[in-house]
């Protein structure tokens, strides 16, 4: 720790940081633009000027940029000194010379960093009478709005987009005062992380286009800590609600998981919540004369209870996108042997294998921020940019770990971004990709191998064997020795090696091979540490569902086929989408009664006896377990209109009516989470994921809405002139209104992230324990899975027999593969059309050409897909998109091509 002097007062500071970070951390206000904790300093905007003195007797000092000056021992600086303060005021005045008079119609207004900084620097009136510079803005697609006139040329956007997120199609163009940030022509931004520009941009150049249709200011949004439901990474989000509908989703800082950012699937997928397909009342889809009939709550629950009491064997289909609580309630209702997962066999096996591997061996599953610090990465099979985008972003940072450490050995401080870039140039740390098809991470990979899933597993095993001869040998290893040695060596010498795999290859063998590879590193390394092991599981609660246990959907279908099932309760899943319309219809025909609980209408729901409207992630409470094995709590953002409620509450009501006494004790979200924790040792720490409902600050709960929430004496008055009292929330320490404790709550339940003078997302520095550190009072969530350590037994990698058939491999699309986000109009517009991707040679041998239509079939489901040739795809694989245009998931994992006819 170094002692520094700010305006004559001494403070302890971390000398590895720059003065701007230290000053912000100490709670001072100092305006800045180009600095960002994730991007580092480049000293471009000249806004964070402070005066530095040579010693105690120096009263004149010199102006320096705080972000470019280390917090060295004995540094004496002044924030308030006239020379720096005047410069800051002048700089903002120059920046504002051409800033348009847009604030009222600008979506950034009210949370604009530029507004905050203008006020902070003291620039009040525009003295300039010069005409303002203008630009022609671009159409950047359905997600992001572009208004270049507002730009202040801080370069944050290109630094994030190109250097941090690896995008290519956003550039700084032009010279002089004509600098332009945009694409070379109109068109959607290609990066999956483009949405972060909305938060990165200090003003309103990049805005959230989905929000513009139902625009609401930050101060009017009711928010609560929540978890993204669109993939298994479990990023923290802050959804905002107004007038009973979600208005936007913003990244919610988590010191260990997603940091500052979010992928576009997570950011823009929220609009499914107000989709036309929402189920809002209980329905009997096959009522009188097969007409859909709305039911009262009472009638619906009675019908379900009657089905429960009159059926001999009831099974339940749990969902990887439903919460632990809902799945647990269903599991208790149908019993452990009647509980199935809404996942096809391959996906189910992959998830179980991944969890077993994380629990049995010595390898720890790293959180995203830990992945960023790994310095050698091997990815087996998974296209992370599409299936778990934020994990890909973390690996992009990991690829810089070694080049950065080289720069640091040259004496460059870690925050000095410009110098580090200069030192790093195009060097990227060892990243090895083994995949069936090109991925967006290929550009940073040290080596890319295109292989079939079977060969990837074999290669993984071969590398593991090169590290530890005890790993059993496998036939079918096609990898050259040099390549194996290279990867093995990288894993051995690295400080923090990492092995990544996922369920995206539809191969349990790849999962197991990744585990063996990670574990085997411990044998070769001097420190005996095993590599870290990260799995990308497909859905938000895949891990949680697997921890509860249960059989795959295929077995439920088989049981129904055998006539063993009288009734099925289907939780938040569309069986048509998983098994295909044919098998799903057959299944629903074989069970006498079916009950569906879901937020959105789908073909399976249309064939059920009773459909119950389930709360979405924004409307209810619950826990999700992410791929890392971290349980995280979703808190209801708003109280939905009656009768929408969490699935487990519907189940509880039906169970109580049907005489399942156990359900009585599930009096609230916390009670059922505690029951699940008692019943499942793996979930024992579940209730620790968030503060409990009896948490109070000065005797009060915490408000969901900001203190300046407007319009509550008018918002609902067209319905009833008597202003309604806000709904109560007995399940969390939050209140559904702006009434709450005036004391700042712990970061994990902070809702608004606003501090005096800081209205923009940059206010976050006020809520972190240290810059880039955990939230004040600790990050939320709790890890449920820890490695068992030594001794361990290598996992059995069972390769399928070699076959002349093309191996089906799912092609995951960040936009479209996930069921709920695909309903959001913005995401839907960017989702690719369904296709069948083949290597041109495979296609030629099958006599297929581009755009030929081929039938694909698996387990009774089928689809017709048009061929797309991809020279980069590994020979012997057929890429079948996951979930696009309602292609049954089973086809992506097990589809066979029907050719020749």
């Amino acid at each position, binding site marked *: 720790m170094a002692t520094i002097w700010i305006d004559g007062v001494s403070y302890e500071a971390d000398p590895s940081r720059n003065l701007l970070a230290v000053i912000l951390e100490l709670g001072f206000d100092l305006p800045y633009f180009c600095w960002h904790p994730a991007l580092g300093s480049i000293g471009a905007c000249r806004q964070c000027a402070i005066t530095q003195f040579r010693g105690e007797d120096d009263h004149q000092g010199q102006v320096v940029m705080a972000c470019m000056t280390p917090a060295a021992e004995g540094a004496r600086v002044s924030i308030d000194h006239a020379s720096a303060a005047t410069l800051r005021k002048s700089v903002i005045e120059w920046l504002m010379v051409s800033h*348009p*008079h*847009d*604030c*009222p*119609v600008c979506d950034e*207004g*009210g949370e604009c960093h530029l507004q905050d900084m203008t006020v902070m620097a003291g620039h009040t009136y525009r003295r300039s*009478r*010069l*005409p*303002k*510079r*203008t*630009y*022609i*803005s671009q159409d950047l697609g359905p997600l992001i709005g572009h*208004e270049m*006139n*507002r730009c202040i040329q801080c370069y944050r956007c290109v630094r994030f987009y190109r250097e941090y997120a690896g995008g290519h199609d956003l550039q700084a*163009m*032009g*010279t*002089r*005062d*004509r600098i*332009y940030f945009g694409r070379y022509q109109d068109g959607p931004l290609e990066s999956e992380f483009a949405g972060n520009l909305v938060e990165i941009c200090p003003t309103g150049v990049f805005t959230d286009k989905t929000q*513009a*249709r*139902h*625009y*609401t*200011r930050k*101060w*009017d949004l009711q928010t609560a800590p929540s978890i993204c439901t669109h993939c298994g990474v479990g990023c923290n989000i802050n959804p905002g609600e*107004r*007038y009973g509908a979600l208005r936007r989703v913003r990244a919610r800082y988590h010191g260990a998981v997603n940091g500052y950012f979010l992928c576009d699937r997570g950011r823009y997928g929220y609009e499914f919540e107000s989709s036309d397909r929402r189920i809002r009342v209980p329905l009997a889809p096959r009522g009188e004369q097969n007409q859909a009939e709305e039911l009262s709550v009472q009638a619906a629950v009675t019908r379900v209870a009657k089905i429960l009491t009159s059926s001999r064997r009831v099974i339940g289909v749990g969902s990887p996108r439903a919460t632990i609580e809902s799945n647990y309630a269903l599991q208790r209702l149908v019993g452990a042997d009647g509980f199935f997962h809404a996942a096809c066999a391959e996906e189910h096996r992959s998830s179980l294998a991944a969890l077993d591997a994380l629990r049995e061996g010595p390898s720890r599953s790293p959180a995203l921020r830990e992945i960023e610090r790994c310095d050698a990465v091997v990815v087996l099979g998974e296209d992370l940019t599409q299936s778990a985008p934020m994990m890909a972003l973390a690996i992009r940072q990991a690829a810089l770990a070694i080049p950065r450490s080289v720069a640091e050995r040259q004496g460059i401080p870690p925050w000095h971004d410009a110098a580090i870039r200069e030192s790093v140039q195009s060097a990227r740390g060892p990243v090895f990709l083994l995949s069936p098809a090109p991925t967006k991470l290929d550009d940073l990979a040290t080596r890319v191998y295109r292989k079939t899933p079977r060969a990837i597993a074999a290669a993984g095993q071969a590398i593991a064997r090169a590290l530890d001869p005890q790993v059993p040998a496998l036939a079918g290893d096609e990898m050259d020795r040099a390549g194996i040695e290279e990867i093995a060596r990288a894993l051995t010498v690295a400080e923090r090696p990492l092995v990544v795999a996922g369920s995206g290859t539809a191969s349990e063998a790849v999962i197991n091979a990744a585990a063996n590879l990670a574990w085997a590193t411990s044998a070769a390394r001097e420190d005996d540490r095993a590599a870290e092991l990260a799995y990308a599981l497909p859905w938000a609660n895949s891990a949680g569902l697997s921890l509860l246990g249960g059989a795959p959907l295929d077995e439920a279908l088989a049981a129904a086929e055998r006539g063993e099932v009288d009734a099925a309760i289907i939780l938040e899943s569309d069986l048509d989408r998983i098994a295909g319309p044919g098998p799903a219809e057959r299944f629903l025909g074989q069970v006498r009664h079916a009950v569906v609980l879901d937020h959105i209408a789908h073909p399976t729901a249309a064939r059920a006896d009773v459909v119950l409207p389930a709360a979405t992630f924004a409307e209810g409470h619950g826990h999700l377990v992410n791929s890392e094995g971290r349980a995280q709590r979703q808190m209801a953002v708003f109280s939905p209109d009656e009768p929408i409620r969490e699935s487990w509450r519907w189940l509880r009501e039906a169970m109580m009516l049907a005489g399942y006494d156990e359900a009585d004790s599930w009096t609230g979200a916390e009670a059922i989470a505690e029951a699940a924790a008692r019943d499942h040792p793996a979930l024992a720490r579940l209730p620790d994921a968030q503060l409990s409902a009896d948490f109070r600050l000065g005797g009060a709960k915490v408000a969901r809405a900001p203190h*300046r*929430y*407007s*319009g*509550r*004496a*008018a*918002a609902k*008055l*067209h319905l009833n*002139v008597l202003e309604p009292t806000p709904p109560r929330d007995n399940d969390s320490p939050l209140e559904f209104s702006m009434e709450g404790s005036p004391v700042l709550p712990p970061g994990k339940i902070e809702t608004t992230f606003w501090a005096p003078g800081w209205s923009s997302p940059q206010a976050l520095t006020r809520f972190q324990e240290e810059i880039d550190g955990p939230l004040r009072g600790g990050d939320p969530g709790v890890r449920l899975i820890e490695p068992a350590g030594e001794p361990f037994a290598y996992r059995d990698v069972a390769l399928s027999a070699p076959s002349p058939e093309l191996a089906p491999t799912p092609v995951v699309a960040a936009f479209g593969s996930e069921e709920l986000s695909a309903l959001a109009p913005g995401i839907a517009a960017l989702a690719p059309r369904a296709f069948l991707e083949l290597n041109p040679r495979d296609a030629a041998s099958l006599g297929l050409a581009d755009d030929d239509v081929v039938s694909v079939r698996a387990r009774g489901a089928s689809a017709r897909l048009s061929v797309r040739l991809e020279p980069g795809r590994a020979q012997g694989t057929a890429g079948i998109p996951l979930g696009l245009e309602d292609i049954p998931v089973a086809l992506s994992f097990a589809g066979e091509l029907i050719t020749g006819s």
Partner: protein
Amino acid sequence: MVFVLRSLWVVLQHMFRKRETYRYPEEKAPLPPRWRGRIVLARDPDGGERCVACYLCAVSCPVDCIALQATEDDQGRRYPDWFRINFSRCIYCGLCEEACPTYAIQLIPDYEMSEYRRDKLVYEKEHLLIEGPGKYPHYNFYREAGVSVGVKDPGESREEEPPVDIRSLLP
């Protein structure tokens, strides 16, 4: 003692003064043009809605009696989808008018809006929107702003240069 008598005498003299009271409703008080009464939404000189749904009136309202929802037309012009003022809560403080960046929301010299039912005091946009520009006849926000939204092309606002040519390399 004398001062008491003097006060009494001074007050007593008021018996012969003219009375200040206006005998409303037969006789109406003349109101100054900036009198703060009923709230209206004005139009710009082109006849378009002035309100850009920026929510500043709602947030400045000390009794939270203004609620609205912003939306956009296909040109990107922002306007309120609906706009509601609960006059049974309104205290006619004028802060909304003060906050309005486009002169859309204006308080006018009209106070005769009593109702027997509270719900009739909840005014929707169709009750609030007037045909003219109200107190500020010449202001047109979209002619000053940087956004185009179909009102003008980029660079055509007052005091704007034509759009820069980003391909130019001239110094």
